[in-house]
């Protein structure tokens, strides 16, 4: 029985879905499909008829194939149209991935370490419970020195003290490496002060201490390093100001201020005083100085040959500035409602 192309096409067009279409394909073009059979039958015809019949059967096969393909495309298209018919609000909030929340001070610490790595500094650490020697005496703060009042100290009942600063790490590191100078380190860590808390002070916080010792290290080196650091932390437009200060373990000693990140150093926001710097245009960020010759002598380094600088500042302070946190006690409370913003 000859197959009617138009009829077949109509059947294909009428296939309701992809399953029906597939069934039809098998019925027509499968191994035992009717179109296939017709093609096979050509071989049994007398040679004279073969050419014509063959060509017709082949044409039918091609036509059926094309129709199946076209219907398939149409069906899939209809399916997509159906699937996309539900409206999708492209602006509605997405499903949140369940990521955690890094602590802001910890983020800043990581960022600082990253900056220093780029400047060739390595991380050193020291004990949080220190001896009086490393926390005070070696740093040129003898017992009964009034400077001990600068950092109100906790003491343990037996001996030792929770360190009041990370500067003791300077001594420990230099003791280990005095025969292989130069050194260039940063030393982050927790410190403890026996002071009442307020929005700007908590009794425990982190410090990051920097130390460079080499031949011919100068105040200009210190200034350039601090300047680079400020730009790294607070942005390229940041300017540095040094003010004279006193620390027993550095000489000269300076206080480092950076231009305020909120008012850009003008001190003003419109008519009002800037809320962050209080109108001065400067933010106090920490202390620094050239290592005191007595400190170097305490370790056994000749201050006439070697010189160095040290600096220290607080990641919480930087975090408070960077993220606009106006109460540093938040860093220690842990309050998830606060931390979830980071």
């Amino acid at each position, binding site marked *: 029985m000859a197959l009617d192309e138009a009829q077949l096409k109509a059947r294909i067009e009428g296939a309701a879905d992809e399953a029906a279409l597939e069934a039809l394909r098998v019925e027509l073009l499968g191994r035992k499909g009717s179109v296939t059979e017709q093609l096979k039958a050509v071989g049994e015809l007398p040679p004279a008829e073969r050419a014509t019949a063959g060509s017709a059967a082949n044409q039918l096969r091609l036509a059926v194939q094309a129709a199946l393909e076209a219907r398939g495309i149409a069906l899939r298209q209809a399916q997509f149209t159906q699937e996309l018919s539900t409206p999708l609000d492209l602006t509605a909030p997405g499903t949140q991935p369940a990521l955690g929340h890094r602590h802001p001070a*910890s983020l800043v610490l990581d960022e600082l370490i990253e900056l220093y790595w780029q400047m060739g500094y390595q991380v050193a650490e020291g004990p949080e419970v220190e001896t009086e020697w490393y926390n005070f005496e070696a740093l040129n703060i003898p017992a009964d020195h009034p400077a001990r009042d*600068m950092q109100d100290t906790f003491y343990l009942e037996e001996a030792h003290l929770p360190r009041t600063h990370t500067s003791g790490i300077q001594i420990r590191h230099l003791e280990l490496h005095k025969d292989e100078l130069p050194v260039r380190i940063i030393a982050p860590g927790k410190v403890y002060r026996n002071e009442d808390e307020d929005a700007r002070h908590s009794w425990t916080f982190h410090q990051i201490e920097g130390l460079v010792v080499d031949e011919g290290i100068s105040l200009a080196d210190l200034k350039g390093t601090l300047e680079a650091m400020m730009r790294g932390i607070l942005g390229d437009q940041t300017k540095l100001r040094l003010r004279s200060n006193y620390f027993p373990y550095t000489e000269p000693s300076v206080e480092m201020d950076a231009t305020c990140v909120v008012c850009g150093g003008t001190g003003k926001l419109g008519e009002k005083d800037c809320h962050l710097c209080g109108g001065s245009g400067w933010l106090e960020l920490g202390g620094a100085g050239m290592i005191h010759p007595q400190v170097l002598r305490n370790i056994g380094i000749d201050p006439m040959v070697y010189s160095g600088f040290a600096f220290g500042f607080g990641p919480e302070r930087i975090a408070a500035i960077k993220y606009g946190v106006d109460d540093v006690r938040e860093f220690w409370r842990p309050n998830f409602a606060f931390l979830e913003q980071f």
Partner: protein
Amino acid sequence: MKVSTAWIKEWLCRTMSDKEIVSALEQAGIEVEQTIYSKPLDKKIVVALVKKVIQHPGADRLKIVFVSTGKEELRIVCGAPNVREGLKVALAQVGTTLPSGDKIMPAKLRGEVSEGMLCSERELDLGPDHDGILELPDSAEPGTTLCDMYPSDAIVDIKTQTNRFDLLSVVGLAREVGAITGAGSKELPEGLHADKTGGPEVAPKVGAKRFMLVRMKVAADAPSPDWMVARLRAAGVRSISPIVDVTNYVNLELGQPLHAYDATKVKLPLTVRLAKAHERLTTLDGVKRKLETDDMVVADATGPVGLAGVMGGVSTEVDDTTKEILLEAATFDGVLVRKMAKRHGLRTEASARFERGLPVQLAPVAMARAVELLTQVAGGLLVAVTDQLNVAPQERPIELRHDFLNRLLGFEVTMKEAVAALGQLQIEAQPADSAEIIAVPAVPWWRPDLKEAQDLVEEVVRVLGYDRVPSRIPVWRPRQVSFDHMHGRRRQLQRVLYGAGLFEVMTYSFVSQDQLADLELDARQHLKLKNPLSVEQAYLRSSLLPSHLQVLARNRTYAKTVGFYELSRVFEKRGSGEQPAEPLRLGVMVRRPELAYRQLKGILDALARELGLELKVAPETSAEVGWAAGRRATVWLGKLRLGQIGQLDPALLRRLKLGGEAAYLELNVAPLLEQARPRVFQGLARFPSAQRDLAVIVPAEVMWADVTAALADLPQATAAFVEDYYGEGVPTGHKSLTIRLTVRHTDRTPTDGEAAAVEAKALRILERKFGAQPRAEG
């Protein structure tokens, strides 16, 4: 220290604005914590001459006053008792805003028009007097604005460096301002010399490097002058009497504490000695003090009359009837004074100065100034002077090599500049040794902080200004480079915890005894603070758990499902005198309505995988406070005990008013980081695997760790946990365990038969080892 800028100005060689003074102080390195600018008086307040005074027709106490400002005549209603013709007064004209903020309007008082107001001292904020109107000097020119006659001075509140006694004085501050601005400051007065004979008898034995005592007759018939009272008030010192005011004034001005005794109440000689046991002293603040044998006292023949360098005693106090005084200017030992002040909780203006270590040269200068002022304001008459110098001052030369200066600064400062800079600070220096050395033959006595060359470098750069310092990055030529891998691994660890959706927290290292007691931790095994801020923070924690329970409790209402972690050191007490061990710990807490442990264990597994480590979790059967019974395990890394993991005791959670479950993990981090290994790529499977899920019933106590160990040797197959199940259909004391067996060959796809053989073998092993039974389907 608070000080009026007017006082500083008095010691400067040129006039200067308050702003200039403040900025010079800051450049000098003196922290100006606050500058209180008093507002200048309104320009509408002028000098007026009282022309005529008549009685107010409608009020006994009021007068009608006709005044002239030189330009116009005005009619004022005034109630002051001291208003009289010919008086020069302060007139607030209509439109004036008084310091109080009140505005002067044209007014009618009891029917009489008033075109302004005559002001009292208090109304102008020039002093406390409000009994009458301010009487201006005859020399005042009518029409002159009061703000020109009474320029407003600022009060600066400053914090000074503890190594500089001199900055706790007006003169010292003026010296800094004079140096920084180049204006220069006035020189100190000549010191007072002792009489050869006849001075009051003294016998200092300890702790006084110098002891000066002056006998003076006094006749204070009027209170201290306004200018003195005003300056003391600006410094926060109350006026008491001319004698006491002078001692306080000189202390503020020169930084030398002085003390005046009523001469009739003292039985000479005055000595300085250590207190004897059981001695007592009532100090000027009225406190009766028990003295310790290491207290340094000033004593007369009868006993202690003052805590040396801290506070005088009541028994020899000067009062209104005092006719003769003994004035003491001593150089007490700073360390002794500091200890005493601390012990007695009595930090005074005097002790604060002695603590910084006063030079002996200061006492005679201060004494001279005090005598001058007492003569001026208290009818003082010098009778006799005693001066006992126990420690002679020494000249202190310092040499600063020019090349050292430039090397330390990192820029070129000429000899001339350096010498000039030092000169501005009144440090006399000169080039020596073919101009390569800056020689300071004698450091000024008021700068005991200057000890060596580096100190002079700082002085030079302080005067030149830090803006002169160029910026440079130091060259880095390390001898060798050693790499730090620990920080990178620490970050890797943090990434896993962050990816697990945990909060990172920071908590205080100090905990309370109660927090330890809650977990039955022995307080004696913990390091304790001698001087804690509060009992809440008295012990150094040896575990993060107490703090982390508090975090849970404080965030009770935040969410029912929450997890957090902290990386922090803890403190483990060791032998006495030894520094404690400070292992870095990781604490992880997961709180959920259920399955908290499973989630936490998943985090631990992820950590192990990420760091390339095999961690063993070994259940512990013994009970431990804080942990749920039978739900605590030790975490091992090889033979190293890393810490614990488990579910927390529900009773503990309920006590903290927390519902659901909480699971906790605490590990020593250092071994994790040190032993972390990079992962090894296993090669991609080239042929598909076959998987069979095997469900068996085993006794409930059979642990997954045992099962995996038993199945470790299955040929070319691995076993993975799918689920365990307790409950319906499972006999009591048993559990149903579903294990996924994955069979994989490196050279072909396993056949169904091979997979079935593996499953059968696994079942045989489990039957033999654990008495496992295949679980019936359905």
